[in-house]
């Protein structure tokens, strides 16, 4: 037989516990206990008590009346002035256990039961609602009349609220309340208490609904009256608040000038709380006096009167049949044509009602409407719309006289097609392609010619270049070769002129000796050359002193002869001014040499007195100005005036400096326009007969036409501007020989015979050049030198200059 363990150990019972003792009315009381663990065996409970300090222990008289685990002490066993000491003992087979003793004072445990039979009633009279509450005292165990006197307390609250209102009622078992809200449901409870002890529990709840107040209705209000077509009209009102009672509304009206009051003919057509006046009942130019009356059980109420003249309350319906049509104008711009119809009810045909229209539109995403007043027409053309956008359009209307705007018609949408013309795009594409091509070409040009352009923009700084000089040749000292080397064959005339001019030597006195063996000392020549270029000796330092014009010429050649030269001298007129004019005149862009030569002339002239050294050794001025002329193609050649004696010495130098020395000897006179006349200034102060190289005068000689004014030079310049050479066109230049020198500083010039015949002086020049001497003698007297007077002018028409004579003026 299997052994079954119950798992419950058997032991003596747990300790019971007295939980409560209570007396209902001070005459009886009960105690209840809670058993402890039963130890696995049935327990017996026994309650023992003793009174006060008595030692006698009694057992509970009644275990049943108050229920299980209780003990009921009836009247006989209850003594309010006694303190009971109660214990409960639990016993089972094994053992027993006793609770803690409980001291019970009857008077302190009194708590009655709650009252019963609570009933409520309301009574509404004269707009006051009363609440009646009734109840009964709690019953007692021994059925009988409960003669105890209790104190009662009542509490109530509206059903939805939380807070109770507690009212002390006293000893009566009923109560009346008046301050109740109508229409509210209340909940009521009562409780009671004896003189001593505690309040009972609250009775169960009772609720009651207070009926609402019954009032007559409040005033209704007429909201508006409208006529949609100026033939009928409708009025709407707002109903009055009623007290829950059903309310009836009636509309009454009377017309201006009449006493009779009518009732609304039609409450239904226009909906609830409205009145519809049909055509028969509508009169114009008449004021209606309209009121609404609300009636309920308690009474009625009338609204304020509303006066209305139908003429002024016309509010039409919105326009209908709105059509939007996109059309294209001539320029292919789209425009919108709107058409619409007046609302169907409005009788526009008879002229009774005339409507004005207004439309509004906005782009779909836009914020603001643009409103356009259209007037009485029923169509509108709109041009200012953006392609590609969607527009919303609405129209409304109103009578042309007093009246109200209708509601806006329903929204109409229209999308403007984007006018994506192929032509436009093609134009843009072509423009883009062309511009890119142009950019490419420009950049290509820039790349290719960049170098040149840079050179154009930033011209290179000329360095001290000497062209055409072979130092080797200089060393050898062969004059002819040197000359040829220095020859102007294909000598670049123009832009190198300046550089050539650099080669001109400005010979110093001190360096004369050194200069003599110039051929031996090419270095010195170069030095001199360089020196000339370097230093700004002030001698004819336009760029390079004095020799510039010579250099400019294709063939610069010192006339080997100081003998016969035609002096081509620039006539100096008016003193300095002429020089300047000539200088300026000969200034040309293409002839920098000339300009400089001219300048040098001026400079030189100005500086004559101060010149300390001459490039060349000069013969005493008493002798003559030896003027050497170079004329080949070269227009001018420097004319060296110097000692014959020193000529030879000069020549090498000169030859080195000048081109075409041989040519000089040839005495070719071409169209040389200018010659540089180096005139040794005769220093009057200077007593030294020899070598007054103090001054180096260069006379720039222009061949001038016989009958031309010095302004011819200007012309020359103009002409020569055409040629890109330093040469001036010689067409108008002429040469005149120097006949004599007067006073050491006056150059007497011969008129050029040939000039009288032809302006071109080429051949005759040659002739005359060959016979300078003769001519000199011949025409000695007839020519006046360019005297120091400013206004002197050679009657021959050729203009020559005597720089020396003008020197003072230059100062």
């Amino acid at each position, binding site marked *: 037989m299997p052994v079954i363990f119950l798992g419950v150990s058997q032991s003596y019972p747990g300790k019971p516990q007295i939980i409560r003792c209570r007396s209902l009315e001070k005459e009886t009381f009960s105690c209840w206990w809670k058993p402890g663990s039963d130890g696995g065996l049935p327990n017996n409970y026994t309650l023992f008590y003793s009174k006060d300090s008595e030692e006698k222990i009694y057992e509970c008289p009644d275990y049943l009346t108050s229920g299980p685990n209780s003990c009921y002490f009836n009247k006989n066993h209850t003594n309010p002035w006694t303190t009971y000491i109660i214990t409960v003992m639990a016993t089972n087979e094994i053992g027993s256990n006793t609770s803690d003793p409980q001291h019970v004072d009857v008077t302190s445990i009194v708590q009655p039961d709650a009252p019963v039979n609570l009933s409520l009633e309301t009574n509404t009279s004269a707009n006051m609602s009363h609440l009646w509450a009734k109840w009964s005292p709690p019953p007692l165990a021994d059925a009988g009349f409960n003669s105890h006197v209790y104190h009662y307390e009542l509490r109530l609250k509206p059903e939805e609220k939380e807070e109770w209102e507690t009212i002390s009622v006293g000893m009566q078992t009923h109560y009346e309340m008046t301050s109740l809200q109508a229409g509210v449901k209340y909940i009521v409870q009562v409780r009671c208490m004896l003189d001593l002890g505690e309040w009972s529990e609250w009775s169960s709840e009772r609720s009651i609904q207070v009926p609402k107040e019954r009032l007559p209705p409040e005033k209704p209000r007429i909201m508006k009256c409208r006529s949609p077509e100026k033939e009928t009209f409708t009025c709407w009102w707002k109903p009055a608040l009623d007290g829950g009672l059903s309310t009836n509304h009636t509309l009454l009206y009377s017309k201006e000038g009449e006493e009779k009051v009518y009732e609304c003919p039609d409450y239904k057509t226009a909906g609830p709380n409205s009145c519809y006046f049909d055509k028969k009942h509508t009169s114009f130019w008449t*004021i209606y006096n309209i009121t609404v009356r609300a009636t309920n059980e308690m009474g009625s109420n009338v609204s304020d009167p509303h006066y209305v003249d139908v003429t002024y309350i016309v509010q039409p319906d919105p326009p209908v049949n709105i059509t939007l049509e996109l059309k294209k104008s001539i320029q292919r711009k789209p425009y919108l044509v709107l058409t619409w119809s007046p609302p169907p009810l409005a009788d526009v*045909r008879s002229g009774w009602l*005339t409507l004005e229209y207004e439309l509004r539109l906005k782009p779909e995403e836009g914020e603001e409407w643009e409103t356009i007043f259209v007037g009485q027409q029923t169509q509108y053309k709109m041009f200012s719309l953006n392609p590609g956008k969607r527009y919303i359009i609405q129209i409304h209307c109103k009578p042309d006289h007093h009246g109200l705007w209708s509601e806006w018609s329903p929204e109409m949408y229209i999308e403007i097609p984007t006018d994506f013309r192929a032509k436009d795009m093609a134009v843009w594409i072509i423009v883009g392609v062309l511009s890119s091509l142009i950019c490419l070409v420009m950049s290509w040009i820039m790349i290719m010619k960049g170098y040149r352009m840079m050179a154009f923009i930033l011209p290179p700084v000329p360095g001290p270049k000497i062209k055409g000089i072979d130092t080797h040749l200089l060393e050898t000292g062969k004059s002819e070769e040197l000359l040829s080397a220095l020859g102007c064959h294909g000598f670049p005339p123009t832009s190198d002129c300046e550089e050539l001019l650099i080669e001109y030597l400005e010979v110093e006195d001190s360096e004369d000796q050194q200069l003599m063996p110039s051929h031996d000392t090419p270095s010195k020549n170069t030095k001199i050359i360089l020196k000339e270029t370097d230093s700004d000796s002030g001698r004819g330092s336009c760029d390079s002193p004095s020799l510039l014009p010579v250099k400019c010429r294709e063939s610069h050649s010192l006339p080997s002869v100081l003998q016969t030269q035609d002096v081509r001298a620039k006539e100096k007129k008016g003193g300095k001014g002429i020089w300047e004019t000539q200088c300026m005149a000969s200034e040309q862009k293409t002839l920098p040499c000339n300009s400089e030569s001219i300048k040098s002339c001026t400079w030189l002239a100005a500086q004559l007195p101060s010149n300390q050294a001459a490039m060349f050794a000069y013969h005493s001025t008493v002798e003559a100005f030896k003027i050497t002329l170079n004329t080949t193609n070269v227009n001018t050649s420097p004319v060296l005036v110097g000692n014959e004696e020193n000529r030879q010495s000069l020549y090498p130098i000169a030859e080195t400096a000048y081109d075409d020395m041989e040519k000089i000897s040839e005495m070719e006179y071409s169209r040389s326009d200018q010659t540089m006349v180096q005139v040794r200034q005769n220093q009057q102060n200077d007593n030294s007969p020899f070598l007054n190289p103090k001054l180096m005068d260069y006379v720039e000689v222009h061949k001038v036409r016989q009958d031309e004014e010095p302004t011819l030079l200007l012309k020359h310049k103009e002409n020569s501007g055409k040629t890109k050479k330093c040469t001036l066109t010689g067409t108008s230049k002429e040469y005149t020989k120097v006949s004599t020198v007067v006073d050491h500083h006056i150059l007497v010039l011969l008129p050029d015979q040939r000039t009288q015949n032809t302006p071109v002086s080429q051949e005759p020049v040659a002739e005359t050049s060959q016979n300078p001497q003769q001519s000199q003698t011949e025409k000695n007297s007839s020519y006046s030198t360019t005297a120091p007077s400013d206004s002197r002018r050679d009657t021959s028409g050729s203009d020559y200059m005597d720089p020396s004579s003008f020197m003072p003026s230059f100062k």
Partner: protein
Amino acid sequence: PHPPSPSEGRGRPGTALTGPPLCGAPEEGCDGRGEKHFPRDNELGRPARKCHTSGMLTPNGKEYAQKIPREELTHLILKLLQAWKEPLSHFNQHIEHHQQLPDDSLSKAKEISNMVHELKTGVEKVTEKMQSMGIISNSLNGMASSEGTGLSISNEANMMSDSDFIHCFRRDSNKVQSYLKILKCRIMPENSC
């Protein structure tokens, strides 16, 4: 108070009277924005309000206006215009002494008087034309301008208060405008009717 807009014989052939609507003040409710802009409507019921033209029997609805003969309608229009001629000038004189009125009120009032006068002249001309064309008969010619009735009516008008005057004028001008339009569309229906 601003004078109300006069009726204008808009669209009437031969009467190119197209003045601007003179209804400018919001309190007149002229912009038609709602009855709250018609506060004077509640004053309309004052019992004293009675226009001097109230005695005239005029059709007070579309059907009536369409039914009565053209001659009568034309006659009625002229009568109304005539009835207002004198009161308007009187009114103008009256308000000239009002210092508290803004300046443009005076000028507007004069303008209105002129417009009414021109309108009357125009209607008379048109009536003559119509009569000559046989559109309407001449039967009522003699009754058009009876100075006697006009005088008594005018006397009444001079007694009116300013606001009543304006109210009555507003109404009658609207009447005249409506009648003219009806008449126009009756006689020449194709002209935008």
